[in-house]
């Protein structure tokens, strides 16, 4: 039976066995209100026009598709095309979602924005839209991540946001999400929680996907007008999975387009130091949804590792869990070293500094290209730019800037 992927999630927020609403009772009603508000707005022509206007004039859409010719030639296989989300305002795909959710927040009359962030990209994108709409903004960030992403922390402060260090648990993204959820449950009357990835309880995986799906819609149209056909394969990195689902979604029903997600294999999946929830995890419940998680035999969520803070997450969006089980998408691991090699390769052959997250996708794109004919097209989502990672890369290579 052919699955029509445009029909998910169902009204309970389920993608097959995954997704749903696994939260404390206090949040059930606020989530129902959010679902009702969003469901109304998503089909409202005035809201759509407002969003499209912001995406064009504030974010800078559409982002181009760039043919990485020198890189492709060097590899000698399929042609690598890059969807340039790194050229968006604030430097990543994250702004697509925050612009959308901020508009929802304003329509719901909320005056305070909260967000969690790992690498800081979503925090910056949230602080950005909050500043623009004159809303108070509080960003929760793991103490460990604050230490390794100082520039983004300062950017958020420059944008008027308050950055709250989270010192519980592993002091990283998952703990920041817990703390943001605790803030939300406490201040639910006036506060809108902008979740940065396609995880969390329904309607977040659906809503965040919808706001990022502009990437794939645009890319599909660009491929047809500029290349006269769809790509043979799509590649994107997957942490929580928002840029990946954003690119994939418009192509899910195009059975001939191969879809590959690159997870962070860190120091190698066999070492246990990785963040590959789909490749090495198991179905469980985390942060409000059922999905693949990395946990021990007692159900305790385990520490993850990736050179890229944005992929350092022990869960993954439930739609990806569904796509893995149906076989529509494949998820593979890319190690820290492979991502770094791809980062340098892209910098030297194309003059583009990619984010470390996106470098995982580039590495997987290169791998795929090697095994494909020269007339094949691989579209890689270049989800963010690498300026934020320059210090991390220098430190790994023994340099201090």
């Amino acid at each position, binding site marked *: 039976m052919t699955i029509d992927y445009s029909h998910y999630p169902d009204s309970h927020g389920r993608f097959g066995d995954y997704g749903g609403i696994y939260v404390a009772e206090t949040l059930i009603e606020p989530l129902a209100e959010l679902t009702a508000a969003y469901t109304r707005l998503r089909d409202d022509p005035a809201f759509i026009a407002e969003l499209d206007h912001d995406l064009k004039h504030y974010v800078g859409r559409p982002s181009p598709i760039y043919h990485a010719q020198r890189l492709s030639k060097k590899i000698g296989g399929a042609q690598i095309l890059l969807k340039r989300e790194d050229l968006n305002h604030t430097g990543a795909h994250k702004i697509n979602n925050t612009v959308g959710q901020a508009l929802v927040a304003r329509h719901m009359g909320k005056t305070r924005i909260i967000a969690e962030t790992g690498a800081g990209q979503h925090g910056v994108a949230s602080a950005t839209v909050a500043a623009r709409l004159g809303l108070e903004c509080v960003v929760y960030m793991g103490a460990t991540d604050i230490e390794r992403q100082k520039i983004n922390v300062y950017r958020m402060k420059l944008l008027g946001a308050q950055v709250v260090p989270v010192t519980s648990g592993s002091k990283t993204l998952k703990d920041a999400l817990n703390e943001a959820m605790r803030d939300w449950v*406490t201040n639910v009357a006036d506060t809108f929680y902008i979740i940065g990835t396609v995880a969390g309880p329904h309607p977040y995986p659906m809503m965040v996907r919808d706001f990022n799906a502009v990437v794939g819609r645009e890319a599909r149209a660009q491929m047809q007008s500029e290349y006269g056909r769809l790509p043979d394969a799509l590649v994107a990195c997957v942490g929580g999975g928002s840029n990946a689902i954003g690119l994939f979604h418009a192509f899910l029903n195009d059975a001939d387009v191969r879809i590959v997600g690159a997870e962070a294999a860190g120091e190698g999946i066999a070492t246990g130091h990785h963040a590959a929830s789909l490749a090495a995890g198991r179905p469980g419940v985390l942060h409000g949804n059922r999905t693949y998680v990395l946990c021990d035999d007692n159900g305790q969520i385990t520490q993850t590792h990736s050179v890229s803070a944005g992929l350092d997450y022990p869960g993954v969006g439930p739609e990806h869990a569904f796509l893995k089980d149906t076989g529509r998408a494949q998820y593979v691991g890319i190690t820290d070293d492979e991502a770094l090699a791809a980062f340098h390769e892209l910098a030297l052959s194309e003059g583009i500094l990619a984010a470390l997250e996106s470098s995982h996708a580039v590495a997987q794109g290169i791998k795929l290209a090697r095994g494909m004919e020269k007339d094949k097209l691989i579209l890689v989502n270049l989800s963010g730019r690498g300026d934020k990672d320059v210090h991390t890369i220098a430190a790994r290579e023994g340099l201090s800037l």
Partner: protein
Amino acid sequence: MNRIDARFAQLKSASRKALVPFISAGDPSPDGVVALLHALTESGADLIEIGVPFSDPMADGPVIQHASERALAKGVGLAQIFGWIAEFRKTDTTTPIVLMGYLNPVEIHGYERFAHDAVGAGVDGVLLVDCPLEESQAVGAIEAAGMRRIFLTAPTTSAARLAAMCEKARGFLYHVAFAGITGANRLSLDAVRERVAAIKARTATPVAVGFGVRDADSAAAIARFADAVVIGSALVETLAGAGSAQAACDAARAFLAPIRAALDAGSAAHAA
């Protein structure tokens, strides 16, 4: 008869209110859990809630978060917790025990296996914080095994949901006193009284109130209209300072005694 139902029936006929202490399993010391459970019943606990530690306790404030982290660092998991309860049951066959926790440890343990092991150990009820009514199908094994699924109600719960919950409620309903996390200080008695009255108008199932109950005064005030008072963070914080298993038992007794006295004084005044 399920021990929870038996206990509430007994309290009702005696016109007494239930004192429900919450401890975080394995904190302050894994070796002292069984003795601590006995100390709690000796100091007037009518029902005991045992928190199963989880790495990502989204609904808990810092006190219970830290207690969970300490217990996890000592390797506390469901297998040990079942062992402690079984040990406690050798000498206490009447005090109901409710496990309170998050879904993932239960999901990974396996629902059937969890239900089997919990009943075998002597657990009477299970409260899964992040498993609302709508997602309950997976946990059907808990009720099938004879335990009670304890549901939370919140200040934000809509009238329609409240009606559905009251219909499904068994054992008791746990009303969360305010929108927030455990241990916060946001208790508004008038709001809680109103909600509890709304629940009691719909169901005969006993209503417990928790979150923000810290001492004898707040407990007695809640007990004027609720059937049971849950005290968690304040007790966990007190126990955390205990230097030994014996000191934890002593601290538990000293903490609960005035609360028990205040609840009983309230019931007596009411009866008079």
